[in-house]
């Protein structure tokens, strides 16, 4: 049951590169900490897809297990990150990272 045929690996690599770049762009472009965080998730997502594509082409389950770990870590990161965001919001009433300028002097 080989589902995918005729799509070269390069296509996947390019797709993942573009997704990753979009994520990075978002991190730089947006000022809302929450959205930045989402863009980071997008980047991780691109990595996951790349790993899976490689896994399929190498016939190697290792990469899929790696993806598994990335997902686990992403989940842990999200829990901590959102807790931090909530803490910041409690004190500043904003999630705009430009509003956080206490440390610039």
């Amino acid at each position, binding site marked *: *049951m*080989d*589902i*995918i*045929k005729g*799509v070269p*690996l*390069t*296509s996947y690599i*390019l*797709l993942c*590169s*573009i*997704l*990753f*770049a*979009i994520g*990075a*762009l978002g991190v*730089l*472009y*947006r000022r*809302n900490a*929450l*959205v930045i965080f*989402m*863009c980071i*998730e*997008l980047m991780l*997502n691109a990595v*996951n*897809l790349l790993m*899976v*594509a490689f*896994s*399929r082409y*190498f*016939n190697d*389950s*290792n990469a*899929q*297990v790696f993806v*598994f*770990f990335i*997902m*686990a*870590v*992403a989940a*842990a*990161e*999200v*829990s*901590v990150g*959102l*807790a931090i965001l*909530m803490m910041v919001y409690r004190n500043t009433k*904003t*999630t*705009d990272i*430009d509003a956080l300028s206490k440390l610039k002097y």
Partner: protein
Amino acid sequence: MITQYLFYFLTFVAIFSALLVVFSKNPIYSALYLIVTFFATAGHYFLLNAQFLAAVHVIVYAGAIMVLFIYVIMMLNLNKEVEPHKSTMLKVAATVCGGVLGLVLVAGLRETELTALSEYSNPSIGLIERLGNVLFGTYMVPFEISAVLFLSAMVGAVFLSKKTIH
């Protein structure tokens, strides 16, 4: 043939909604488009014989992570589109940076030719039995160690959310 069309369709959806994640004004729309991207990715996983990962991807990302995001957006009531006007300079700079990164990646990886790729694809690599064996065999140590990660994340999240007693 149909898989190719599927591939292009999913790719289009993924990239389109990824762009919308970045450029949506409203955070909740960003989040929703991100979910769409995740689903497109899950579709790609299916195409790549990684059914287990596809399911886990949906459960973890769409089912847990993004719910938390939306939960927080809702709780913080971020629907006001309050993002302040950023100077055009910064925007341009960010776009250029991101664009350059993308260009470099695309240009660098455009003509990737992987040697020693097996033409024959083993469909069982994405199956849960196989993954389970790898995970609990080779990757036992990281699996166990990740318990520490979760524990610390849990303790951390609880600690940050706990009310300070004065």
